[in-house]
């Protein structure tokens, strides 16, 4: 009887753990963190860019174009990444913090055109010269760095090299934006819009430092001396002297969860108003006729006086309303 042929032991495949270990060893972590950092900062700038537009164009109006524009800039950055690298080389990464430091100054000049640009062109044009290029460059550079750091082609093949960064950067961007927005909403007021802009620019410089940062100095100098959107006492004084030409005085301005809150007074027309971003929350008339002594100050919005008319509604059964002193109200 012939003996069954002896089975030869199959060649042992290299254990998966070995493979993972070798891939992990091949990752250039320094570069990886730098790449992810650039993407995270670009994501964190998204709510900040929107916040800087809202006092000028309104929160709702400036949010319309923000997301589609961002998506377009991100996709352009992804597809132009090789071209940008050929064109600018390492300078592409080094230009990002410089641009970030210039954004407040570029915005300062573009906001001067806000009356003629209006909505919806204003927010689009402003973003086109500020946040969108920053996002485009950040995505392009970040993807190149991550591809290099992970060595995706050698480790996982060409397909992974193209698609992993595309999907990965999108997911990371969305998460980064949410995380940043959470922190911004917690610290807005303590840190202003401009403060966040400079903070992110500073973090960009730490992530990709270079001598090119010297180019940011003129903008920084301008920001601290003449940019009226910066909340310093001397920049507020510059703002007030400009407003006084139009007959207004800025009494206070603060930044808060619902927007940029400012108190303005018009001596000539005799009223004081509170604004949240570009909208008027309300106010009261200070100058009234000589023989007119209202019990409460007249609101600048007639609707507030109309709302008080709830006191005058008679109950259906013809009973009398409770006197004011025994009534209570909820105003929201």
């Amino acid at each position, binding site marked *: 009887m012939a003996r069954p042929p002896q089975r030869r032991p199959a060649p042992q495949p290299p254990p998966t753990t070995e493979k993972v270990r070798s891939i992990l060893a091949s990752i250039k972590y320094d570069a990886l963190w730098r790449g992810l950092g650039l993407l995270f900062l670009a994501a964190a700038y998204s709510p900040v860019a929107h916040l800087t537009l809202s006092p000028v164009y309104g*929160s709702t109006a400036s949010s319309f174009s923000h997301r589609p524009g961002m998506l377009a800039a991100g996709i352009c950055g992804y597809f132009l990444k090789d071209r940008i690298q050929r064109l600018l080389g390492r300078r592409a990464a080094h230009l990002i913090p410089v641009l970030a430091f210039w954004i407040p100054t570029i915005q300062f000049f573009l906001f001067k055109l806000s009356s003629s640009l209006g909505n919806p062109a204003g927010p689009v044009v402003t973003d086109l010269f500020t946040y969108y290029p920053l996002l485009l460059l950040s995505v392009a550079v970040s993807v190149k760095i991550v591809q290099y750091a992970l060595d995706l082609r050698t480790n996982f093949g060409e397909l992974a090299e193209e698609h992993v960064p595309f999907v990965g950067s999108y997911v990371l961007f969305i998460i980064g934006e949410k995380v940043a927005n959470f922190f911004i909403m917690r610290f807005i007021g303590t840190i202003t819009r401009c403060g966040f802009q400079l903070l992110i620019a500073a973090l960009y410089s730490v992530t990709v430092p270079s001598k090119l940062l010297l180019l940011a100095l003129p903008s920084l100098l301008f920001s601290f001396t003449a940019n009226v959107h910066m909340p310093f006492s001397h920049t507020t004084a510059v703002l007030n002297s400009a407003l006084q030409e139009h007959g207004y005085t800025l009494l206070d301005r603060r930044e*808060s969860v619902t927007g940029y809150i400012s108190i303005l007074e018009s001596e000539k027309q005799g009223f*004081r108003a509170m604004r949240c971003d570009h909208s008027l929350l309300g106010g*009261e008339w200070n100058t009234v006729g000589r023989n007119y002594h209202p019990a*409460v*100050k007249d609101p600048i919005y007639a609707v507030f006086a109309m709302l008080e008319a709830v*006191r005058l509604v008679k109950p259906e059964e013809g009973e009398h309303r409770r006197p004011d002193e025994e009534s*209570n109200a909820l*105003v*929201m």
Partner: protein
Amino acid sequence: MHGIDTTIVEIDPVVYQLAREYFHLPANHTAVIEDAVKFVKKATSKPVPPKYDYIVHDVFTGGAEPIELFTVEFLEGLKSLLKNDGVIAIVRLPFPIHPLHNSISLNQTNMK
């Protein structure tokens, strides 16, 4: 105002603070710095919910009306905080073609 014991619900602490600093906000009020949705939810779930003679519903964010303050649930919550002979005033932007308009008018009728 007019000696009425008023509860003010305001989401933004700075708006409230500046209203006190720069405007003639009457003293006899209770300020609640909270999202109106949360306030109404909390108030209605109390064992004895507070009841008001007047409710003034005037809310805007960024020049628009926040949708969550115009839902059936929210407005029903307000109704349960209103005394039987109470009066509610709702401020709306005049957008007659807005799909919300019909549902809101319906609610106002229901509340009568």
